[in-house]
């Protein structure tokens, strides 16, 4: 059995998960990445999306919006601005999030911000389609 990855997911309001798992897929701002144990140190910002946590045959999904992931020799830490387990998600909440994202796109002052907001919106729409 390969080494386990020490994984922690925290949002400002609570710690959602802290345990050893096999693999975690995170939505980095520059692309998806799968993190296994003994990954090289890395820090990335996150795009909105599902964090997939795999442990044996067990798979958990947690939706995160904004934040950071830090991989250090001690494990992976995801600092999410907002986090919600997939079970707690429902169409209504996503619709609300999409509405907010659309406002962000409309309000964005610079092209750069507009692009980021648009990306967030797209990922939410994808999520809505997936449910």
């Amino acid at each position: 059995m390969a080494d386990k990855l020490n994984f922690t997911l925290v949002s400002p309001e609570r710690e959602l998960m802290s345990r050893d798992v096999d693999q975690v897929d995170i939505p980095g701002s520059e692309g998806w990445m799968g993190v296994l144990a003994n990954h090289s140190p890395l820090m990335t910002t996150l795009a909105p999306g599902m964090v997939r946590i795999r442990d044996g045959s067990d798979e958990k999904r947690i939706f995160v919006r904004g934040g950071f992931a830090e991989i250090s020799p001690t494990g992976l830490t995801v600092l999410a601005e907002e986090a919600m387990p997939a079970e707690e998600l429902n169409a209504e909440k996503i619709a609300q999030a999409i509405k907010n994202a659309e406002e962000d796109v409309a309000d964005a002052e610079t092209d750069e911000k507009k692009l980021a907001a648009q990306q967030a919106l797209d990922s939410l729409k994808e999520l809505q389609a997936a449910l």
Partner: protein
Amino acid sequence: MPSLKDLKNRISSVKSTQKITKAKQMVAAAKLRRAEERAKEARPYTQRMEAVLANLASLAEGNPNAPQLLAGTGKDETHLLIVATADKGLCGGFNSSIVRLARERITKLQGEGKKVKIVAVGRKADDMLKRIYGDLIVWKTNFMEVRQIGFGEAHDIAGEVLKRFDGEEFDVATLFYGKFKNVVTQEPTAQQIIPAEAPEGVEPPDLKGAVYEYEPDEEDILRELLPRYVAVQIFRALLENVASEQAASMTAMDNATRNAGEMIDQLTLQYNRARQAQITKELIEIISGAEAL
């Protein structure tokens, strides 16, 4: 000498006051437990955030392009004081001790010829500061309509503060709040949040020779991280404030209940004496009336 009826009225009035303070104390105790729990739940995020920031801050040191939120504007002219108190009273000296600390700082800064601006968070901060420093308050907010303070509220305050920072309205921001030490002690605390002070006592992890990779690059991450760090600090202060407020309120109400109890005992004693004196007087009247016959 108050009449028997007066005494009776006073006793019943003190008794009903005691009922209120007792109820308020129990409510505060229940709320305190929840507030403490929330403050505890928020701690892992803050700690991780501090570790990440400490890690990045060492990289940005001496870098001329370091973000202003970390390096400062290079000036020390205008100070923004964010004074966070509770919205309600009945919590002993909790609000006034925070405001006093802020006031001392204002006097000191003004004595040094610096400009001071105030953001009042919580109704009591506004109430107590507006009399003397009304013209210094640039923005105020309170949580009268918020049932439970969440990260969203902290985010909004941080947004306002950062907007003003970007508009070059101030150079240094300090946050005033009541730090929750334990149920009996709450310490009014001043903490500088802009420019961010790298947290002390946080060791960067041992990388065993490996080098961090950054996606995108360090500066972008830092630029994203710092505004969030400000929000997180404010969030933590708000949570600590809620816990401190409830603890202070519990202690104050406990004292009030005890005082009311003492007062009732005293008044009851006085009442009984007066009653007996009256009975004795009546007896004397009857006896001397009988003797006269």
